[in-house]
């Protein structure tokens, strides 16, 4: 009997919490509607496509490849990112560079975003700071798998 009473008390407490939220939020919604107290919102929602939350400074977004001063990719095709990549989404084919000081550059550098898990290991592994994930592009959805396979041209942009 006491136990049942306990349940009943908890039921009342529950309804009190939800009612309080409803009333308080409604109150501020109404005030905001008339332009009063607009700093205190009735909801925590961010209306995504119109409003965007600031990305954290270290947020890992779409990859990009860095360039040298002359526009060539900074990447030397050491394949450390390929080695460390846990989802095996990077494919590099290396080619001999005419400049003996550079020696090696990627003739193909493909990141398959279908597989990529955005762990950022490639960025950490890179000895040349050639790959970064700081483009702040996060809306990457596409309608085909092929559109998500990023080659040198897209990554160097």
């Amino acid at each position, binding site marked *: 009997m006491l136990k049942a009473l306990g349940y009943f008390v908890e039921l009342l407490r529950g309804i009190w919490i939800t009612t309080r939220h409803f009333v308080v939020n409604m109150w501020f919604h109404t005030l905001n509607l008339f332009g009063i107290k607009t700093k205190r919102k009735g909801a925590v929602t961010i209306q995504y496509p119109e409003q965007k939350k600031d990305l954290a400074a270290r947020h890992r977004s779409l990859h990009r490849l860095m360039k040298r001063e002359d526009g060539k990719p900074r990447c030397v095709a050491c*394949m450390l990112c390929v080695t460390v990549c846990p989802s095996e989404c990077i494919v590099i084919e*290396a080619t*001999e560079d005419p400049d003996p000081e550079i*020696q*090696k550059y990627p003739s193909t550098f493909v990141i398959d975003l279908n*597989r990529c898990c955005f762990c950022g290991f490639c960025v950490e592994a890179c000895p*040349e700071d050639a790959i970064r994930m700081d483009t702040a592009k996060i809306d990457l959805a596409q309608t085909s798998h092929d559109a998500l396979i990023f080659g040198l041209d897209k990554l160097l942009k």
Partner: protein
Amino acid sequence: MAKIFLDGKPVEVAEGTTVFKAAQQAGIAIPHFCYHPAFVPEGSCRLCLVEIEGSPKLELSCSTVVREGMKVSTQSPTVREARRGVLEFILAEHPLDCPICDKAGECKLQDYYQDYGLTESVFREFKEKREKKVRIGDKLILDRERCVLCTRCVRFLAEITKTHELGLFERGIHAEIGGYENEPVRNGYSGNLVDLCPVGAITDTDFRFKTRPWFLTKGESICPLCSRGCNIYIDYHPGFPRVPGSAKVYRIRPRTNDAVNGPWICDHGRYGFIDLQQKNRCQTLVWNKGERTAEWSWDKVLITIGERVKALRENGKTNRISLILTTWLTNEELFLIKKIFKDGLGVRNVFFADPAPGPEDGFLLRSERTPNRRGAREMGFDLKAPDLNALVPDTDILFIFGPHFAGISHDGAWKPALEKIPVKILVTSHLNELASTADFVLPAAFLAEKNGTLTNADGRVQKIAAIARACFDIRPESQILLDLAREIRLDDSYFGALSAPEAVHHELVKEIPFFGALP
């Protein structure tokens, strides 16, 4: 025998052994660059220093011969300090381009740095700038910055090939490896320089920048390009998912076997194998009769062939089956052919179409350019070349194994002759003009993709192991033959029990004990 103490451990070695070899026998690794078991010790790298009791200085283990009762310490603080110093000197001049160095991952300098060095560089000056890309041979590129001047390459060319293309020029900090009058290294064994080089100074255009060594899996195998049967490692990349064709064999390295090839292999095998493994492979199963070209399933093709053979067998005309074989086939496959066709069906027309013999070079490369002629002979095959005149009128079904048949007549006379044979079946790992003539083309596995044994010219039976994953329709010949035997319903109790090449080998040894001597 002399008794010495290595790090306090008593070791018995033969008189005249060097400390280095004694340590090796005792399982103690001593770091080294210039020492190589095939050469006279040089002692230029100063890494194999050990402390010997009674000796005022550290001694070079590679050139110090053991004395009775010698007390050697390979890991004492003095020794480690000395090695660390040597490494620091080497690293003072060595570029830190490991990310683009092909040797990274299997580089001795990297290993020793991990073991001994890990020091901050105290060297404040700029590193000496040298040439990064010197072409010293058809497929060889020398990077003088990375060179640690161990002179292994120079000594290889002086002592093994005796061609003396490379030498050590200049002195002190200007010392460098180079050719006389810039003559390129051009001999049949130049690829070994890449394996010899302890760092990434000499690289090979075939492998250069293609992949990184840590992606590769190595498999032990036998070089199929001549009857020497050199022992090799096949370095295979298992490939990236979703990238077709990324799984492939990247390079061949010698596997030391003093009874056959020592630590070397020839360029013919080294580069030829890669070409054979990758180029012109037969990859699709084809039922091909004139215009009607369609891809069939293995089951359908084998049933169809089996029915043709069965029809001949019911009429007692199995002697109208002819075979053209090749000695690229392993012992097991030859044995299965013998059991099925010679013993089972009574086929008499058996020919061998092998590539033409090439020049011998007096060291490793032999004139027989297939790996298993000795095996075929021991099996009881008569290695006669195909005789079209004898063959064509007596043949209803012709089995051709291997791609070399088209090479035997240069005038193309075989083509109209083959047209007269009703059923031609080609089992091949590589494509050639025959494929368009044959009724069935069955893609077969190449060496890196199948298990079995090969017999070299000296009668050594050596194992090959499947390392690479065969793509598409490819099946090993042993499997094709066994499936065919089951299709023909030829002694089910015998062939039904054989499944893997290992089981076939067991049967082979029971019948011909010669093949039992696996090393």
